[in-house]
């Protein structure tokens, strides 16, 4: 399943909290022209380094599809960072 929401939470040492919720699909649609360019750039890079572009795209898609459920949480004293993919 494609990731739907990426949540980033940051707690700074002064106690200030920042929460960012990124809905993946709308953001991807919004950035689709840039994504297209990035994919083209990636394909060129694959050809330069003699890597199969189809295989690379398939691998990247597999990683993307498998990413929901990932969670990174780092806390040190009063500071904390949380990245969660749902």
């Amino acid at each position: 399943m494609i990731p739907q929401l990426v949540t980033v939470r940051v707690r700074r040492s002064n106690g200030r909290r920042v929460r960012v919720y990124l809905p993946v699909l709308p953001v991807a649609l919004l950035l689709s022209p840039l994504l297209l360019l990035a994919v083209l750039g990636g394909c060129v890079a694959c050809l330069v380094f003699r890597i199969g572009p189809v295989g690379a795209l398939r691998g990247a898609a597999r990683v993307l599809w498998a990413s929901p459920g990932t969670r990174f949480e780092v806390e040190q004293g009063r500071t904390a960072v949380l990245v969660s993919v749902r």
Partner: protein
Amino acid sequence: MNEQRRQILEMLAEGKITADEAERLIEALQREQPEAPPGAARRRKARPTYLRVVVNWQESTGGDGPGRVNVRVPLQLLRAGVRLTSLVPPQALTRVNAQLSRSGVPIDLTELRQRDIEDLIEQLDEVDIDVDDPEASVRVFCE
């Protein structure tokens, strides 16, 4: 109660068979279908889906306070990542091998087969690493 046992008891109730015959039939039925030991289904473990790494430590010398790292990675993501390694070009692997051997780590990455790594990930569900230190603890496990 299963259907065959019920039929035998009904036949006994209707007087079609005697009690001895019913007993023999039930015994034969039990021999055919040995009952599963109690709790066998419960003992069958569900396959884990996540690899967890949890690190806790007490206050460091810098005075930053205690810390905690909590990482949860889907095993499916590990598998996808392993499949990506097949895209690494051979010339890159050769250069990595040369650097590794120069650093005193004589590992030949070209000998590392994808199937082996996938098998390794398959067996990760049995992994439970627990390191306890007075100032820190590390736990790596699957759930």
